[in-house]
């Protein structure tokens, strides 16, 4: 077996050193009734070529989003990833390292995390960020629980435009820990009104959770919501599923957010059928000891040289055990690295340009689709994703477009099947990768499907 260096001769010598005769002697402590008497019923070993062929055959059964005009978003976005990103994250010293518990031989990972934390804090307009979470949805749930610890309250208001997966993940955690959630349903036919959440804030509210751009693509002004929350002693948790939007839009920090929970997939990370992604988590410096997750901090070594270590560990499970801020014991290290490298390549100028291209392309498609009979663009405001109302159920339209080799948009009923009133709505995302030809293809196909 190509991954196993021991030979039968080695094994025999080692058994002799240990003082045992057979492999079975290694498992003498296992109750005999629990030992398998024959190998499990699974296929036998295969060489690289055979495995590669088998996986390629599975891949061939899928429609690659790179081979089709693709307008899918709803929390996962297809962006161009510079070649440098993938080359760098595959360096074995990054790829095959564990958590940087030995800082003297982990300065690469630690410095990278410190840079990542700084980039996330800058983008979100917050003072500090952690070294990343599993994804945006889990970051959102952790933000709500953190707000509960900070305020010692157990009620959260979730805005209607929060991504349904984020809402569901938060609701699952809240249910088991005894946290009340309230929130209005959203009607994307109208602009999002801050009043719908502001009216629900009371003196027992730990936080208000607002996504912008929201799941329907609408850009929300967080400032009045922040003001109303703070007046009641509640925190504002700002969520974004498209971190690139912050290259063009005002940061949540500048609008009064206390915690930002975001999905960072858009920078450096492929769609990958939904994961692994990278959750971003940022907050105010004064709240850092209630922040979940790992964090790198700067210090000096015995020779006075600057270096980095994991710090504030007493918040974490390996020390605090049942009193920890979270049970999380990892981050999304390699995805954070990909994010950080992409952000380093973009820089201030590149980020702004990329964000503007996304918005310009989205506006071009919105204008184009307005001319298609049976399509109505609902949004007044958007970044790179908007909602359309179709003259037929969106799920059927999406299937019909797929048959034509076009990934046309995410039917709202895929995310909210119980909202039958929204079954004609589709979320359409546009990025720098969508060409004019892609947009023509979508508009023409929609015209055909809807006629």
């Amino acid at each position, binding site marked *: 077996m190509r991954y196993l260096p021991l030979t039968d001769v080695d094994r025999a010598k080692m058994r002799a050193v240990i003082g045992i005769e057979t492999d079975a002697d290694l498992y003498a402590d296992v109750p005999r009734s629990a030992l398998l008497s024959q190998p499990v019923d699974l296929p036998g070993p295969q060489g690289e070529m055979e495995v590669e062929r088998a996986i390629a055959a599975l891949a061939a059964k899928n429609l690659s989003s790179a081979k089709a005009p693709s307008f899918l978003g709803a929390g996962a976005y297809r962006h161009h990833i510079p070649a440098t990103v993938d080359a760098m994250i595959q360096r074995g010293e990054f790829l095959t390292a564990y958590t940087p518990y030995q800082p003297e031989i982990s300065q690469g990972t630690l410095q990278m995390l410190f840079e990542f934390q700084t980039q996330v804090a800058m983008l979100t307009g917050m003072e500090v960020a952690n070294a990343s979470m599993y994804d945006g949805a889990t970051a959102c749930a952790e933000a709500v629980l953190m707000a509960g610890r900070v305020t010692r309250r157990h009620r959260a208001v979730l805005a209607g435009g929060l991504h349904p997966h984020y809402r569901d993940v938060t609701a699952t955690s809240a249910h088991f820990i005894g946290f009340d959630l309230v929130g209005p349903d959203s009607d994307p036919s109208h602009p999002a009104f801050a009043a719908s959440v502001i009216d629900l804030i009371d003196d027992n509210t730990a936080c208000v959770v607002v996504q912008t751009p929201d799941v329907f693509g609408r850009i929300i002004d967080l400032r009045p919501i922040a003001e109303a929350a703070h007046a009641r002693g509640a925190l504002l948790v700002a969520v974004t599923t498209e971190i690139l939007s912050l290259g063009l839009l005002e940061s949540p920090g500048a609008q009064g957010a206390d915690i930002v929970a975001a999905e960072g997939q858009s920078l450096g990370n492929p769609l990958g059928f939904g994961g692994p992604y990278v959750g971003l988590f940022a907050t105010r410096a004064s709240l850092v*000891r209630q922040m979940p997750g790992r964090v790198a901090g700067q210090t000096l070594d015995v020779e006075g040289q600057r270096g980095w270590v994991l710090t504030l*560990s*007493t918040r974490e499970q390996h*020390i*605090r055990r049942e*009193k920890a801020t979270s049970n999380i014991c990892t981050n999304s290290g390699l995805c954070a690295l990909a994010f950080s490298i992409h952000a380093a390549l973009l820089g201030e100028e590149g980020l702004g340009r990329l964000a503007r291209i996304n918005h310009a392309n989205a506006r071009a498609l919105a204008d184009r689709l307005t001319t298609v009979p049976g399509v109505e663009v609902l949004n007044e405001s958007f970044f790179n994703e908007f909602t359309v109302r179709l003259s037929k159920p969106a799920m059927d339209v999406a299937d019909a477009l797929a048959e034509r080799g076009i990934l046309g948009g995410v039917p709202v009923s895929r995310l909210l099947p119980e909202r039958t009133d929204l079954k004609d709505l589709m979320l359409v995302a546009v990025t720098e990768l969508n060409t004019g030809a892609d947009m023509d293809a979508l508009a023409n196909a929609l015209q055909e499907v809807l006629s």
Partner: protein
Amino acid sequence: MSVKYTQDHEWIAVAGDTATVGITDYALAQLGDLVFVEVPEAGRTLSKGDEAAVVESVKAASEVYAPVSGEVTEGNSAIADDPSTVSGDPAGSGWFFKMTLSDPSELDAMMDADAYKAYVDGLD
């Protein structure tokens, strides 16, 4: 003024109906260099055994419990601002909080200095 000790390695110095609470040398030695201290706000009502303050070193964290019931009159902001100052004088300027006593009889079961020394000597 009398000083009593708890099995949680806290000391309580009582003068009249107010008391000052801190942690012992032994507790400090177990924790190592302190990096974070949180003290209670004045006005907080505590029952005996409530979590009143937090101490953290790099690798350990612990609660400081209210040794008796009463109301907090002052938390030591100096040690919250600079936790390293506890190390110099845990039995003096490194005090954690002052409180009133609602039931002085709660002190009766606690150890005096000799009993506490014997207790510590008996630990590992």
